[in-house]
């Protein structure tokens, strides 16, 4: 009987606590965040938008916004106590461990063959980072410079790089930055085509490019990740850790003697980290941190970054075409694949090529540019850290 009475008192106190919440400042934001969590889950399941990250993040958003639960701890009602998500956050996101481990998995997944057989394509990967720096300049009009840099890195179109850089720069908007980065990556098939069509004529989109699939020696495949790490580490030391983990994963893949490790990195490690990363990042999706007008601005600036990345790649290809003879010209659309979002961007370019000319197969060229974009975006992250990191 006493137990039932205790239980009744506790339930009553919970209802009193909920009833005592201010509707405008506490209840409404909480409800909005629960709805946002629901929308993220819906987009992940129904629209297949980056489900591996948006689903855990959506669920985490619901968890951290439960009014009386101590999921996060530091920003919940039990001050001083650390919730499970806070523990995970400190263990893997605050020290940037999770994004780096994820890079090993990503490196193990990437086949650099198309770019190794035509290394010139890498130049488009560099050009397509323009959106990052354009957005940096625009965001600096509104945000402090380190926040502007954190927001600009959305243009890297690479989740782990965005998390790593925003974390290193102690951005208070890391939640919004990650939502923007992953959302726009999923929206690449919607964002890129209008920009590409706006900047190219049908004649340009019809340009065919010969693909000579050269055999790449095993030695080249093995030396590539080592050389890239050394070059990036010397020229841009801040990118060494990012590029190093990415290339370590790739070396495991290409060395030929660690197949089981390569498989583990591609599947088990990447999946495990993705599960933890998604739900942990939701720590920054608390209503008090997320429901600010700055979040809408960040989402807008993220779109600007993706648009200008695309434009940078396309316009650079058009610029190079001025100097190239007929028959050697690039299809300018492949420049757009320099955005790191892999493999969506290369598929978009391939599809647009076929739309303009049903015999225009650009997939291999676009894939080469796309994987170059992966490397270039990591280097861009290193550049941003060189300028604004501690």
């Amino acid at each position: 009987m006493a137990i039932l009475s205790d239980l009744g008192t506790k339930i009553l106190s919970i209802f009193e606590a909920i009833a005592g919440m201010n509707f405008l400042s506490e209840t409404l934001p909480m409800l909005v965040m629960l709805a946002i969590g629901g929308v993220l889950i819906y987009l992940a399941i129904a629209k297949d938008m980056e489900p591996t990250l948006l689903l855990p993040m959506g669920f985490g958003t619901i968890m951290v916004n439960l009014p009386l639960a101590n999921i996060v701890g530091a920003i919940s009602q039990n001050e001083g106590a650390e919730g499970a998500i806070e523990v995970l956050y400190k263990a893997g996101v605050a020290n940037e461990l999770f994004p780096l481990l994820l890079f090993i998995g990503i490196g193990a997944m990437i086949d650099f063959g198309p770019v190794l057989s035509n290394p010139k394509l890498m130049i488009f990967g560099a050009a397509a980072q323009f959106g990052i720096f354009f957005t940096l300049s625009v965001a600096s009009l509104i945000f402090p410079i380190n926040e502007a840099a954190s927001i600009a890195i959305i243009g890297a179109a690479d989740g782990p790089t965005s998390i790593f850089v925003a974390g290193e720069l102690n951005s208070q908007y890391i939640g919004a930055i990650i939502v923007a980065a992953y959302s726009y990556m999923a929206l690449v098939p919607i964002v890129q085509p209008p920009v590409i069509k706006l900047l190219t004529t049908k004649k340009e989109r019809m340009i065919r490019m010969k693909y000579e699939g050269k055999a790449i020696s095993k030695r080249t495949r093995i030396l590539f990740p080592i050389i890239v790490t050394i070059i990036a580490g010397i020229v841009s030391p801040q990118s060494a850790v990012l590029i190093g983990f990415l290339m370590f994963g790739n070396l495991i893949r290409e060395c030929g003697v660690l197949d089981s490790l390569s498989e583990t990195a591609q599947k088990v490690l990447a999946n495990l980290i993705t599960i933890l990363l998604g739900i942990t990042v939701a720590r920054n999706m608390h209503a008090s941190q997320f429901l600010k007008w700055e979040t809408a601005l960040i989402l807008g600036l993220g779109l600007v970054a993706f648009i200008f990345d695309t434009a940078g790649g396309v316009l650079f290809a058009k610029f190079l075409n001025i100097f190239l003879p007929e028959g050697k010209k690039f299809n300018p659309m492949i420049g757009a694949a320099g955005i790191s979002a892999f493999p969506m961007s290369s598929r978009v370019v391939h599809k647009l090529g076929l739309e303009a000319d049903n015999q225009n197969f650009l997939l291999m060229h676009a894939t080469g540019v796309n994987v170059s974009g992966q490397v270039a975006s990591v280097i861009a992250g290193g550049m941003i850290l060189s300028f604004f990191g501690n």
Partner: protein
Amino acid sequence: MFNTLAKTVETTVTEVATSEVVTEAAKIGFSTDNVQEALLCSVAGMVGIFIVVGIIILSVSVLNKIGAKKK
């Protein structure tokens, strides 16, 4: 090479950061005070990426040529 570039930018950033003008700009709101350093970083960043990628392209080309000669 890039380190020198980064140091130049860093110096500018420090100079601007220590000025009174930018103390105000640290708050969120429209301000043109940070634009100069942002533009400088943008130019340096793009140049830096092209340099790194250029060196990688050269290295891969050399690797491919060595591989082709051996065949």
